[in-house]
């Protein structure tokens, strides 16, 4: 009886883990598509997929419009290496770059790009929001 209860418990936890993984799998193609095309997109297209808080942060920091700021920002264009989706947040590792995204009411948006790992510390990003 105890063994079967442990078995049920393990099955419930495994189902929860699979559910988490399954939900993330559904979102991965979309976040990978946005992240991999962001660097090559024209300035106005980049601004269209930037998260509102990131647009506001860029415009405030540079005292210019998002399109003007994006025109001056060059990012490496690389293929997708891996991606991770957790809740409403995502990370896409590209060759030479890491992009962070958030889910909004109008779809996935980029919160940070041009990011480099600093170990356990937060990534250092050339483009980021608050």
């Amino acid at each position: 009886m105890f063994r079967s209860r442990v078995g049920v418990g393990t099955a419930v936890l495994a189902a929860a883990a699979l559910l988490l993984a399954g939900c993330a799998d559904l979102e991965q193609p979309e976040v990978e598509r946005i992240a991999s095309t962001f660097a090559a997109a024209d300035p106005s297209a980049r601004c269209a997929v930037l998260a509102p808080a990131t647009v506001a942060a860029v415009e405030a920091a540079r005292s210019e419009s998002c399109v003007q700021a994006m025109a001056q920002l060059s990012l490496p264009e690389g293929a997708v290496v891996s991606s991770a989706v957790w809740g409403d947040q995502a990370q896409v590792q590209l060759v030479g770059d890491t992009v962070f995204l958030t889910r909004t009411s109008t779809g996935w948006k980029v919160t940070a790009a041009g990011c480099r790992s600093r170990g356990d510390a937060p990534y250092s990003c050339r483009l980021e929001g608050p």
Partner: protein
Amino acid sequence: MSTTANTSSPRSGVRRVLHDNGLGIVFGVLFLLMLGGQAVSGHAYFNDQQISEGVEPVSLGHYLTSSSFAVDVVENWQSEYLQFFLYIFATVWLVQRGSSESKEVDDVGPESERDQRIGPYAGPGSPRWARTGDWRTVVFSRSLGLVMGGIFLLSWGAQSVAGWAAFNAEQLTSRQDPVTWPAYLGEPEFWNRTTQNWQSEMLAVGSMAVLGVYLRQRGSPESKPVGAAHADTGETG
């Protein structure tokens, strides 16, 4: 008269069910009300954090299906069931002289079959598994602790999975790498969530066992009778 009897009979039946099951019903309703309160306040708090982190607030429905809500719920469940699981097993072997929460100090251990009314000593009203004297009696004799311990393990496991998902979402929000589930089990966040709940449960149980020696609550089975001596152990009023 028969009409009156017919209409009043079901009402008194409902009243009787409510009266006879008051503890379970009231605490079941209170649980749902408190869970609703946690959902509303947790949603508001979650959205405060979302806004301060520069990401969009979410709907209540979205929050209720999030790992953040799930981990906040089950981290408290696991500690409550751990508390009862430990208390059920600890009170077999540990006593507290003078406490209504303890049995007599000389009764330490699982006690005899006669004392426990199992096997040949089972009465006509004893549960069937208490009468059989085989493995079913062994299991039934520990069923309360086993179920409490099982629910504890399940809810602690659920906390680890939901907490892992919530932790990784937070990691990505602050532009840090997500971690694997085994790595999360070594994170201070997991153990901080766990031990902050455990310590409060141990404090509550320990203080209840000791305060019950000297303090009384008239009419409560959790207390000794008001006039019972401080040294009286295992009495309930």
